[in-house]
């Protein structure tokens, strides 16, 4: 079942209204300026996701799951815009609205994993966890964190380096800071000191934020 974009927007609003705002129903006309016999509304009813009573939309159990996933996609898209693409404000919000509809058929799982299974959107609202989030939690994969999150004495594996400065990246790689290498943080103050193999390096906080490590 693939819903139209408008239908997705409606079920999203309905879910938020019912699940988060504590409402019982959504008034399509007041909330979105839609007549109750609009095509998108009828589409939702046809798919048995909502029930239409007296012109008001009520969510059905099947609709709960669909709504949850739409909200999840929307908030994942927000995270992606903010954290990775660095698009903020009006422009970012517009892009989010277009982008969320593309996050179907497993794309959401990939994005969610790439963002390391975020739990909240940039506005602080919870992102409903997906199957991938449960799996990650279960397998004990605490994910990838910047080196600054490590405690001294903690060991892990370098996941990736994220820096705009390609020279710095090359320098780090030449020093042996390469994905897949084991890394041991030996001290976190006043500078970060870590070991890769038998070599020891000191870096400042700014650089430690750019080295991402996988806990083990």
């Amino acid at each position, binding site marked *: 079942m693939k819903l139209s974009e408008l239908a997705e927007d409606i079920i999203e609003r309905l879910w938020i209204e019912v699940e988060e705002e504590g409402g019982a129903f959504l008034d399509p006309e007041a909330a979105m300026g839609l007549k109750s016999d609009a095509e998108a509304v009828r589409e939702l009813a046809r798919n048995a996701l909502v029930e239409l009573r007296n012109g008001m939309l009520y969510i059905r159990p099947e609709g709960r799951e669909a709504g949850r996933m739409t909200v999840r996609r929307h908030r994942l898209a927000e995270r992606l815009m903010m954290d990775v693409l660095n698009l903020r404000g009006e422009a970012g919000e517009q892009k989010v609205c277009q982008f969320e509809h593309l996050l179907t058929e497993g794309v959401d799982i990939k994005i969610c994993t790439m963002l390391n299974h975020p739990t909240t959107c940039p506005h602080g609202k919870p992102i409903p966890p997906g199957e991938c989030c449960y799996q990650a939690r279960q397998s004990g994969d605490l994910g990838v964190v910047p080196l600054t999150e490590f405690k001294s004495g903690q060991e892990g594996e370098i996941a990736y380096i994220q820096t705009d400065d*390609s*020279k*710095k*990246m*090359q*320098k*780090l*790689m*030449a*020093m*042996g800071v*390469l*994905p*897949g290498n084991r890394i041991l943080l*030996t*001290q976190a*103050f*006043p*500078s970060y*000191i870590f070991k*890769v*193999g*038998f*070599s*020891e*390096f*000191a*870096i*400042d906080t*700014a*650089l430690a934020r750019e080295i991402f490590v996988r806990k083990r």
Partner: protein
Amino acid sequence: MSTTGSEQQQSGTVRRVALVGNPNVGKSVLFNALTGSYVTVSNYPGTSVEVSRGTVRIDGQSWEVIDTPGMYAIHTITEEERVAREILLNERPDVVLHVLDARNLERMLTMTLQLVEAGLPVVLVVNIMDEAERMGLQFDLELLRQRLNIPVIGAAMARKRGLAEIQQAIAGYQPPQTPRVISYSRLLEGDIHAVTSLMTGSYQLSHRALALLLLQGDEEVAELVRGCEGAGAVAIEQAVRGIAFERRESFHLDLSMERKEIIRKAVQGVVQVPANRRETMGERLSRLTVNPLTGVPLLLLTLYFGLYRFVGDFGAGTLVDFMEGTLFEKYFNPWITDLVKGITSWWPLQELLVGEYGVITLGVRYAVGIILPIVATFFLFFSLLEDTGYFPRLALLVDRIFKRFGLTGRAVIPMVLGFGCSTMATMVTRTLETVRERILATLLLALAIPCSAQLGVIIALLSKVPGGLAIWAGMMTLLFLVVGFVAAKLLPGETPMFYMELPPMRLPQLSNVLTKTYTRMQWYFLEILPLFVVASVLLWLGKITNFFETLVSAMNPVMQFIGLPREAAVAFIFGFFRRDYGAAGLYDLQTKGLLDGRQLTVAAVTLTLFIPCVAQFLMMKKERGWQVSLGIFGLVSLLAFGTGYLLNQFLVATRWLG
């Protein structure tokens, strides 16, 4: 691979061997072991990077040995690395000794791979075997030799282990029959081929290596290729741009990962790592030095014993007393004065040579009697500390604080060196990453860091004024902090990130320390002694032409402004020629009873802050240009006299120090 240079070299009698490798793998120790004492150290043309050269005879054949600066990869980033590669490119060594640390074999082999790939005549020296074995690592170097198909020698240069084998490997080096090719993934090979198929020129490095460097965006190699390929260069650049764009996300990473994989396979079975390894003495000591709780007290202890007791008490006290007080004042000066006066009776010439400001009685006496013992003890202390591997640890300890002054922890090395000779330290600020950092460090060196010569005299001078030394030290620290903080806020730009490898801590080798001290002394003397002579001549001219009297009168208002007698102007004028001349001038005034405790303190503070000596100013001009150096000059003068004024007002008002 090209061999255009080899015919010339074979016909000549001298062959060349270059030592390359990461920093801190024992290259210099190997270099010293190979060459013995006939060594020249010089700056590589157009850079501040030092390159040592020496010679060795093996089986009747004379070899020039070149010790290159440390490099991490053939794709160069720092100035040191560029020089190292320039040497490989331009000097066409017959043998390249790649020295690496056995403990980090796997990581450092990446560069071996790059050197071999470049078609260079590589001999691999796996150094520091003794320490690696003590950690429980086991090596099968024969297996590594077979896999890499190049000579591999295990060595421990600190014990001269492996030296004979290395000499034999140099003498008996046979270039391979067919160039060795490192093969990568099909994708990368396709990219390499796309570039190499367009290349026709002949180079010192192989086409494959050059292609990879081009793809990594190496601008110097791009320049080189442009020069060699002529019309074909456009097509190459286009191909490179195309691939670089296609793989823009991850070319460096992909290449590094492929190389890492090749190395991982090559060292399988070569190194056995023990499950549990013991912590060595050095590692334990290292942990103590980097932990702020123990590191700061250790730092203070080091400074107290090293700078205060050894350089201050012993160098500037005991040694100077003996050299200057006994040797010069008692024996040499009376003798030379009589001698000169016996030869000539012409007064100006007598004055020039042995007068109050005479070239011999003042210039040489200062240079040899006062400065030599102080800088010798300082450089000895500095070189000793350098060889233990302590400086990088000090750098990480102070990085957070230095960030407030817009500097990174790296700047700690010029700063500490500044306590020895600010002129040399100003030159060393080149090693800092950004121009902004260099300017900030130069300013702080010019203002608030007293050099050892000055330090010695000022400590001796102010130790007679109770509380004077504390006020002086407090003022220096205050100005360092305030000016550093404010300058960092005002000067636009960002502080670069801090990253540094921590070499293992080890006991320094005496011979190495002495060689380093000697080279630094040599530099100092060649640069400084002529300046002393020039300064003496200028002072002499000033005296016989009465120019000084005029200048002293002109400075009278300034002296009054900060509450000093007019005679103090002499010290400030001298101070410009040498900061320590100035301090020594104060010493004279004090012995004549012209300064009380308050005036002495104010004068010492102002003089330390005031203009760096001529040599340092010239170095500033050379390194930073007229605009910046004159700016610093003006700022420093303003701050020095301004501080002198305020301090004097404060001391008068509070009636401290009488």
